[in-house]
């Protein structure tokens, strides 16, 4: 039994954990920016599923994963733009529109899948990994962490970029102001709508990219409802992380590792019912909330549409 836990197996396990974490990381980073700017983006699941579809379509037609990521981002941005117009510009209720977008794009992509792919189930070729020299040869950790597609490292770099952006740039200040006191940002001469638009579009791009990653690398194909609530998990991660990109990464990895653990325990033949094992990641998060959740400080204007001059 224990001889199953070879370095190869452990490597694959953690490799899988990373693969599972990346879409959550991207969704969480995206949602984080929306929330920072005061928009509770419940439509992220819709952005993700549409990004998964357009990302797969792009990669499949162009035979290029990179083009697929680009079309995935565009797909996510398309849904985000609807959200921008309705929720940022016109101040419509973010929860209603968010749920509407999620349902709508789940339905639309299932429909499109039915007409396009349901007879052929096209699958993409294996994604070329980009092993990082030397590091990739470390036992277990090497294959787990340093033999991924380039996009995975880019996602990790993004964590650092986002941290710097929030802490070191004017945009970071603007975003925080848009979420905490939009009127103050407005009178300082910065367009609140534009700031929030940037944030929501970024969310769309990240969610779309996450969806495309899920379809193109995670699965290698598109099936309806493939995102399976990953966007909602992104919302939870963003709220838990309270504005810190690194925490999104930690949360996403926690989920990924718990999923890997589920597989590991089963492969080891440990006879715990899978449904019980599957509760682990959620229990872990709830435990974190009970222990550290006190006074989670979300942006003061989260969810509030901004209207200039309104009292």
């Amino acid at each position, binding site marked *: 039994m224990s001889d199953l836990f070879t370095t190869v197996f452990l490597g694959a396990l953690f490799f899988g954990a990373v693969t599972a974490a990346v879409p959550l990381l991207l969704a969480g980073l995206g949602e984080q920016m929306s929330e920072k700017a005061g928009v509770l983006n419940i439509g992220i699941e819709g952005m993700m599923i549409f990004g998964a579809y357009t990302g797969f379509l792009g990669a499949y037609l162009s035979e290029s994963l990179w083009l697929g990521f680009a079309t995935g981002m565009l797909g996510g941005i398309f849904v985000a733009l609807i959200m921008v117009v309705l929720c940022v510009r016109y101040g419509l209720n973010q929860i209603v529109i968010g749920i509407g977008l999620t349902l709508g794009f789940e339905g639309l992509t299932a429909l499109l899948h039915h007409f396009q792919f349901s007879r052929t189930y096209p699958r993409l070729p294996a994604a070329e990994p980009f092993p990082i020299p030397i590091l990739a040869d470390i036992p277990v950790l090497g294959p787990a962490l340093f033999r991924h597609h380039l996009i995975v490292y880019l996602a990790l770099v993004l964590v650092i970029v986002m941290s710097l952006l929030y802490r070191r740039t004017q945009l970071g200040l603007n975003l925080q102001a848009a979420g905490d006191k939009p009127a103050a940002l407005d009178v300082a001469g910065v367009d609140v709508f534009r700031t929030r638009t940037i944030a929501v579009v970024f969310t769309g791009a990240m969610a779309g990219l996450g969806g495309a990653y899920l379809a193109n690398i995670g699965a290698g194909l598109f099936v309806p409802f493939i995102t399976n609530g990953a966007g909602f998990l992104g919302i939870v991660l963003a709220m838990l992380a309270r504005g810190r990109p690194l925490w999104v990464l930690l949360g996403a990895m926690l989920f990924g590792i718990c999923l890997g653990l589920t597989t590991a325990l089963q492969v080891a033949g440990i006879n715990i019912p899978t449904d019980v094992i599957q509760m682990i990641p959620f229990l872990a998060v709830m435990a974190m909330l009970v222990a550290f959740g006190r006074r989670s400080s979300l942006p003061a204007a989260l969810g509030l549409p901004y209207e200039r*001059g309104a009292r």
Partner: protein
Amino acid sequence: MLSPAHHPGEAAPIIELDGVTKRFPGIIANDSVDLALRPGEVHVLLGENGAGKSTLIGMLSGLLQPDAGQIRIDGKVQSIGSPSQALGHGIGTVFQHAMLVPTLTVAENLLLGGPWWRRPNKEGLVEKVETLAQQLGMRIKLDALAADLSLGEQQMVEILRALLRGSRVLILDESTSMLSPAGVEELGALMRRLVERGMALVFITHKLREATAFGDRISVLKLGRKVGEIEPGRFRELDEDTLMAEIVEMMFGIRSDDPESVAQVPGPVDDTIAPLFSVRDLALPAGPNAPGLSEISFDVRPGEILGIAGIDGNGQKQLAEALAGQRADAEGSITLDGAAIDGLTVGGRRARGLRYLTDDRLGEGTVGSFPVAINFFIKEVGAPPYWKGAFERGAAIDQRAAELIKDYDVRTPSRQTPIGQLSGGNVQKVVLARELAEGARVVIYNKPTYGLDLNNTLSIRQRIREVAAQGKAVILISTELEEVLGLANRIAVMAEGRITGFVDNGPDARMNVGRLMIGISQ
């Protein structure tokens, strides 16, 4: 008192409003208003609550767009489509309510507005702030969180921000209403220094003394129209009392000498009467942004008004909340009519006749989206006769609300209007009616006239006197010394969460209170 040291001539205006009109649903907030803002002048804008002052400012700062009329800047017709355009024209505004992002530091707040991809230039800022602050005699804590600043400090930051942006026009909307007397003087001096640098200032206030002390020119708005203007020439000719009388006549159509001065100073009440309300060793732990309380003890006799003076933020609000029962962490004993009430909840204390009139009428005093009628009763939800069993008795509520609206002269379109749409003064009257209507025995007023116009201020002060005259015990917390001196029989001074001394009202009271406030004991 300061008086204009420098007398500007009729320089060409930077900004001219020409027949500017602004309509809101059901109201003309500004009706063909003409106004000129000239360099080197403090232009005071006066008017009752709801006269349209803030609306006018909104159009100058790009928050609102006029429905008719034009705005000329440097003689050319311009539109001010957004706050950033206003800033571009050199118009800086310090709004009635603080406009800083509480979670950012002062420096970050000052840096807001740069190109978005840039790295905020903190070093450059430090340099500029140092020079400006030195020139103007301001003290700025760049690394403090905006949320940790006092209101006065926040205002300074906002003024500084306007100056950093190279503003030629600076608008101050009711900037003095939250300042201590010393803060007001300081702001006045700063305003003088700014006009000396050739800026045009707009100064909005409800306090005529400030208008006469700091202004060069006065315009009066009434019901959205400009009803009068006093030119700098005449302004300088008239003495303060005549000036005030003239302004009051323009604003209210009544003639009066000094409307705020009080005929007779209330003396101490007979101290052989048993106290109605006693507090012993009240204490409260300090919070992250608030001082704690310690060793607070006092008595209030029936018919007595105990004034609590002190600079804002020295624990007055915490004291009021502890007395009202809103602070579970308070220690010490409180007795009303000989019975301990410190174990009771807010509702329990209220049932015994303890009433607390909060200073935050919109934040906690009322529910803005609820009708006026319901707001009269939100402290006695479920009580008869307005609720029977668990059910609301709409007719009883409506009827009583109508009476209270009439008795307290609440100006509202209807009983069903959401209270948030009323002007501040009218909201205050609703809160007042709620606390005083029935069964009050001890009343705590916290800044009862903050932000109110003269008429409302005077009528509310009169009510406070009447309440005491009915044999109730009154605690009056106020940062306005005039108010305390005009109403209280005895004055306690608070500093850093303690009472530093008591002063019986009388001829020497002003000096004694002042000494206590700046830390010199009697």
